[in-house]
């Protein structure tokens, strides 16, 4: 479904990603872990199409299409969803209004009829239950004055509404207490299917107790330096990242 080949990206001339290779198939959950500053969030941003990053080398295929050629909105319409690490507060735009605009643009792109107000509302009610989010919250300005947990739940709610093929969760666990973490993870798990895939970007293993990955990759200095199964995450939790850093840095100097 997703094929990343030798991806290099930089911001304002500073290289951040230095040759990422990754294959993600339908039905899989991949965790991307790594120390701070390793390029995890950059990878998520580049896939979603954030303009500040310049892709200097490599290619990304998503369901056979060259993802990097597409605008951010077309990536979303093709089925890529980025759950933001820091969801943006947008005063004056209600979640409901914004999501209806988004959903209908996505549906139009996919050749589907727009949803009328009634159908949209019933879809919303169904998905709201998934992340235990209150309707009152959704009629308020998008993320404005939301708590950390509410913002993250809103991200997963949006994901549920847009039914993506590939979901990228960027540090979705940051700033969540254990209850919120459980609710958010439950939502993500319920949305998983054989046709969709998930990339979980996280610093901590904790989230992976809830969203169990098929593969774990460690990112360091802009490359995937180690891949394994969920046991690798447990090992990282126990031993930290230093041993991997040493391993990589020592081979690099040889």
């Amino acid at each position: 479904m997703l094929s990343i080949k030798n991806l290099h990206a930089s911001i304002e001339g500073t290289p951040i990603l230095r040759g990422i290779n990754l294959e993600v198939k339908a039905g899989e959950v991949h965790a991307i872990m790594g120390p701070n500053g390793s390029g995890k969030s950059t990878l998520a941003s580049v896939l979603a199409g954030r303009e500040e990053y310049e892709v200097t080398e490599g290619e990304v295929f998503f369901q056979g299409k060259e993802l990097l050629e597409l605008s951010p909105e077309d990536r979303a319409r093709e089925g890529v969803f980025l759950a933001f690490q820091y969801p943006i507060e947008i005063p004056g735009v209600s979640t409901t209004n914004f999501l209806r605009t988004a959903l209908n643009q996505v549906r139009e792109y996919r050749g589907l009829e727009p949803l009328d107000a009634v159908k949209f509302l019933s879809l919303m009610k169904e998905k709201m239950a998934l992340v235990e989010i209150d309707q009152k919250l959704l009629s308020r300005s998008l993320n404005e004055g939301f708590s950390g947990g509410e913002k993250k739940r809103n991200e997963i709610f949006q994901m549920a509404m847009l039914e993506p093929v590939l979901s990228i969760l960027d540090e979705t666990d940051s700033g969540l207490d254990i209850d919120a973490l459980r609710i958010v993870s439950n939502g993500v798990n319920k949305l998983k299917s054989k046709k969709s895939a998930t990339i979980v970007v996280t610093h901590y293993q904790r989230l992976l107790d809830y969203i169990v990955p098929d593969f774990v990759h460690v990112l360091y200095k802009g490359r995937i330096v180690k891949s394994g199964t969920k046991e690798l995450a447990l090992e990282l939790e126990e031993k930290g990242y230093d041993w991997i850093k040493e391993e990589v840095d020592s081979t690099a100097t040889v």
Partner: protein
Amino acid sequence: MSTLTKSTFVSGLFEVLPNTFSSLRQIGKENFYVQGFPSLKDEEYKFTPIAKKLETGLTNFSPAIPVIISAEQINKAVPTGFEGVVLVFSNGKFLPELSSSVDGLTVNFLSKNESTPIGSIAKAEKDPFVALNQATFIDGICISIEKKKEITLPILLLQFHQAAEGQVISPRIWIEAGDFAKASFIDYSISLDNSPYFVNKVVEIKGGIHTDLTYHSLQEENNQVIQVNALVTDIQQDSQFTSTQITLSGDLVRNNLTLNLLGSNSVGNMFGIYLLNGKTHVDNHTNVDHTLPHAESNELYKGILADQSRGVFNGKIFVRQAAQKTNAFQQNNNILLSEDAIINTKPQLEIWADDVKCSHGCTVGQLDEEALFYLQARGIDKTTARGLLLYAFAGEVLEKIELESLRNFITTKIQERLGSKF
């Protein structure tokens, strides 16, 4: 003040004056000649080169005569869903045969009612444009609202403008509301074609005690029009006055808004949106004068400026020594969409009382790129996303418009603009 701006090129205006209000016109003329058109050296016109614009932009400084207005033109101009009184004007002249009325409302020509104390609220000695209007207005109207009358229907003043190259239109409006009266006005000015002209309008509003008056002004004239609008109002005790100023186009627009809070427990609200593109220049000067204790003023102006447009905002709050327990709030926020757009914004507070709450703030920024990306990342195209964000920015002011048909009308206009040009 150059001698050129004082004399020669305006003389055409003074040639044939109506024989009504003759002493008042004389006072206006004298005051105009004393003050002249303000130059850029005048602090109040520092950023708005009105004199230069008038000298170079107008070749025919003479009064415009009314043109014929058709029923179709009126139907086209009235907002969809609008239910209320319509007063039709052509180049400042009231057309009673095309207008409607309602119980409690009286509309008269000023020429038929020379006892109207025009000039007592908007004072010729304080403003050269008010002076010029006072000297040269052709006719005007006085609108009275009966004491204790709450007029629930909005009153729409449809101002059609069409003048030959560079003529002057000088509307003059006097509004008087008896004690406990309530009314809401919409002053909508429209160009009938694309020729340049100069509108120099004066609106005076005198409210009794315990009145609730709203004056919306929607400016959508062609991009060759120069206009100066003065709205001056005296607000008595326990009264509320709200001004909403929406400017969507024009060449050079200057709005002078003055609220005199003359009683305790009075409230003055000043809201505005300017949505500018091309080379439009809009200058909003507001002035609120707190004279007695326990009065309140609220001000919120929002600007969106594209292309080479220019905005000026100057908000003066004057709190006199007697005006203890004053609450005065002022906010002006701007989004610049191009590198060539300019905004000059200035709060100006003069506070002589020592127990007051005053706040002010102005911001100038660009469209939030992070927010734009967030919306795009959910599948919304860039144009729509920009429109959504800009609309949300202006929305805070639109929400203040209580009249639903007007709010929808303006909302649609703004959305159309934001969806296309911006």
